[in-house]
């Protein structure tokens, strides 16, 4: 099977989707490594999976649901306990544009 690497542009595209800013060293390191691993993933294509259903879980488990009832909410103190980015009862986040 031909080895299919991952070029730098492709790596940067994936990193962008994943919101990861990679350093130059990481780009160098990962281009090769990710390419190798993906080529290894390609082994899966050897398996004939025609008419095979995918398994999302090891055991089938359907229709687990709860009744529609209101439960206690989290204390405001706990809501904001792990952040400094807060203002007037809101969380603060980065701007959109």
């Amino acid at each position, binding site marked *: 099977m031909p080895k299919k690497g991952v070029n730098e542009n492709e790596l940067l595209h994936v990193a962008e989707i994943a919101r990861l800013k990679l350093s130059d060293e990481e780009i160098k390191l990962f281009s090769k490594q990710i390419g190798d*691993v993906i080529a290894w993933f390609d082994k899966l294509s050897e398996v004939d999976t025609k008419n095979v259903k995918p398994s999302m879980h090891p055991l089938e488990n359907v229709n687990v649901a709860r009744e529609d009832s209101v439960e206690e909410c989290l204390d405001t103190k706990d809501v904001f306990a792990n952040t400094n980015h807060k203002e007037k009862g809101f969380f603060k986040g980065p701007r959109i544009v």
Partner: protein
Amino acid sequence: MNALDFIKKAKKGEINLEDFYSKLFKKLYDIDKKYECFITICEEEAFNQLKNLPNGRLYGLPVSVKDALCTKDVRTTAGSRILSDYKPPFDSTVVARIKAEGGVIIGKTCMDEFGFGGFSTNCAFKVPKNPHDIERSCGGSSGGAGCITAVLDEPHIAIGESTGGSISSPASFCGVCGLTPTYGRVSRYGLIDYANSLDKIGPMAKTVREIALMLNVIAGFDEKDQTTLNENVPNYEKIDNIKGFVIGVPKEYFDGVSDVIAEKVWDAIKKLEDKGCKIKELSLKMTKYALPAYYVTATSEASTNLAKFCGMRYGLELPLEGNFNEYFSKVRAQGFGEEAKRRIILGTYARMSGYRSKYYLQALKVRTLVINDFKKAFKTCDLLAAPTMPVLAPRFDELEKLSPIENYMMDVLTVAPNLAGIPMLSIPCGSIDGLPAGLHLMADHLQEQKLINAGVALHG
């Protein structure tokens, strides 16, 4: 003294818990200095627990918890810098059940960041050292749990977590017992996710009887985790003999295993035969595909789980500069370690449009075939037996030289049963030059009792 005797004595009031814990924590700090097994030691919280300790099945027992499990108001990092100061406002179900039975949480054990690794070297804070040789790894990702279980000469049970072998690997390398229950047997509520369709919480201890005790406490349906199985929980401490068990030995599980380990494992299998089991060699044909199928599935799920860490609400925060794309990318670049980034990229790639069918969906189909492989084996076998790890605990300097794929290959024996969600138990089966080898027993879904029965028969 083992945990069972200790609890009995503590219940009778024969142990002064205050004194016991004062001495214990001194010891824990010393151990941690040498072996680096804890991310957080919970001395103050433990003494707070002692003030009002429920007289339950774990009364007074020291319990350590892998740092991926949330503990209310106690730092929970999952081994990641991005959560280095995170204090959850709730207990994970497993921790809540342990506390409700009088177990005392002594600390949060070291792990690979988010469980990403087999040697606990990918932790943002510390790297646990193997108690048998501190130049060597404890295995991982529950390395801290394996380490403290082996090294602490006091009653104690550890809680580990396995996605692809993270309980079995440290159990084997550290020479202790580790049980990975059936997927869904134990609630994952409050477990910081690695890969949700694979993550399983399980006990680690010096003996199998202690494991049975802990499994009794933590197993069972949980309304807060809709993937838990609504199945009856037997009394795992009721041990039966294993006479007449058919033990399958999959031949693929000896490929590439060092001879000295294979020999020890066969010795253990012979012992099972001596106890009245029948041994049967068989083949699990999908074994070699289990590894890439596992890595595709695990990284796909992991890369979505890790999206939530972006410098809002909790976790690492930076000044709010730039737009959200810039800000999130910067926080994540600083907060995640190298292996986390690698797995995020792999997982994002495997589920991208254009690749989704080829990798993600194909892996789920291969997973079906792996499950079928095991299901077929368990039609004729009660248990499967194999080595847990193909090698003895590796030296840190050897690990540094491994490429990611070579590193992932180390999970070759544990990944398939994890992918199939079947329960498995690793128990020590002798040592080679002072380093322990592990026997891996696997059973059909929900057949933890068979593992425990065989484990007690071999190891106690």
